[in-house]
Every structure is written in structure tokens, then in C-alpha cells.
């Protein structure tokens, strides 16, 4: 087992997540991309704990509370989406939804209403 490999692997996972957020076209893919950044953080915590501070409990505490809260937040978002699935305009979320889409109307002129 190699410490450097662990660090670089996590950085790759983080970058895959960031790439996925830019690349994804529908909301499910955006959620999938978010998971990579979370997994990267998760492995960072347990990896550092394993290689650097073997008797630390901080990482476990942080992961238990942090992951619980993050997934609860995501759970609430999905619940809301699930509940309002029939609302107009939600169809756009599954076809053309980019989290960082920049349009001219975002900063110049009116936005179509």
C-alpha cells in the first residue's frame, strides 16, 4: 500500500467529479458526479487516518456526521424532485440540465418572461 498512490488516486477522483459536473447534461448525472467528490473526501479522511495518524478518531466522527448530513441534504433534494415531478418545466431537468450553463440572458437584457 502506498501513501502517494492514495493521495493521487483521490485527486483523480476529485477531478473526475469536477469533470462530471461540467460534462453532465441531466440532473441524475449531476448527482452521480457529486458522489465522486464525496467519495474522494471520504477516502482522504480514512486514508490519512490510516497512513498518518493511526489512533485518531476525528476522521470517523467527521465522516459519520458529515456524510449523514450531506446525504440527508441530497435525500431532501431528491424527495422534492420526486414530489414535484409532474410540475411543468421539470422535464428540462432530464434532458438539458447543465449546472454551469451560462447564457447571455443571465447577465444582459431580460430573461424571457
Amino acid at each position, binding site marked *: *500500500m502506498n501513501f502517494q498512490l492514495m493521495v493521487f488516486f483521490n485527486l483523480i477522483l476529485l477531478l473526475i467529479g469536477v469533470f462530471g459536473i461540467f460534462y453532465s447534461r441531466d440532473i441524475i448525472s449531476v448527482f452521480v458526479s457529486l458522489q*465522486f467528490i464525496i467519495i474522494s473526501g471520504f477516502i482522504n479522511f*480514512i486514508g490519512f487516518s490510516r497512513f498518518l495518524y493511526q489512533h485518531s*478518531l476525528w476522521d470517523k466522527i467527521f465522516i459519520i*456526521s458529515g456524510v449523514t448530513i450531506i*446525504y440527508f441534504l441530497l435525500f431532501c433534494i431528491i424527495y422534492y424532485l420526486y414530489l414535484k415531478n409532474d410540475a411543468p418545466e421539470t422535464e428540462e431537468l432530464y434532458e438539458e440540465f447543465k449546472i454551469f450553463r451560462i447564457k447571455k440572458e443571465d447577465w444582459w437584457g431580460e430573461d424571457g418572461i
Partner: protein
Amino acid sequence: MSFISRLIIILINYISIIGLLVCGLFALFIKDNKRKLLFLFLCFLFAGLLSFVYYSDILFFTAGIMMLFFFMLLYLFVLQKDFFRRPGSGDPGKEFKVPARSKILNIIIPFLCCAAAGYFIYEYVSGFLKGVKVAEDGGNIFIADWSDISNYFFTNYSLVLIIITASLFMSFLWFLAVKAREK
């Protein structure tokens, strides 16, 4: 630790890293949502396997509960979406069309940005990592169990626990509020 045990752990480590990477890439690029989620779930299983290798198996069971709830809801949601597809969007020929040029740019630009960021981070970190002192493998292994964690949690971080519990209660009210409006 005997040589064979160490070898097994190293093997599991490499298998889970490779599995995580491969499943992750599949989950990212496959178009079918159900398969995408399947690969993502495999990713989480490999991450759980890694937590065993790094002596943090307790996290697989505690943090995994919330993940499971999230996955169940997401999977249900995707199933429902596929089952009740709107007539207009059900036809594959009528799917949202994106020009080929924009598709390619959509891959290349983020890839180049991430690759550049990755390269700079690699340059920045690699020198430092060589000097880091890593804990020896042969010493005593410390595997935290639930009583250690709960002791630490309740002595120092009871406030955090109170806030999280309170937020669950508030969310219950919110579930009611959003649901009531729907009727």
C-alpha cells in the same frame, strides 16, 4: 502481521482502487440511468471495501445507512421516471438533440481544464509527498469500534448530535408542508 495477510490486504487495496475507478468511469459515461446507478452503487461497495483495508470498517455500516436511503430514493425515482415517461419524450428519435460540435467541446474543454488542474496539483504535491513520514505497517493496529466512537462523540461533540437530530425533526415538518401543498 504475517506476510500472507499483508499481501491479501494489498491485493484488496489495488482491486478496490481499480474497481472504483472503472465503475466510476462507467457510471459517468453510460447513458442508461438504471445501469448508471448500478455502477455507482458498485463504486460505493468498492469504497466500503477500501474502508476495510484502511481499518475503518465501522464507517461502512454507520455512514452507509444514510447512503442506502439516498440510493433507494434515487433508484425509485429513476425507475418511476422511466416507467411514466411522457409521450413526447418517450420516443428515442425525439430526444433532445445536441449539435456534434457542442458535444465534442463539452467533453474537451472540461477535460483540458481538469487535466491542467491535475498537472499543477501533481507538480505541487509530488515533491512534498516524498518527504512525508508514513506510519509503519508492522506496528500495533488500532481498529476503532463503536464504543470508542460513541464515547468520543458524546463527550466532545454532543452539540453536533443535537443539531443533527433537530434538523431531522425540522425536515419532518418540511416533508409535511411540501406534501400538504401537493394535495
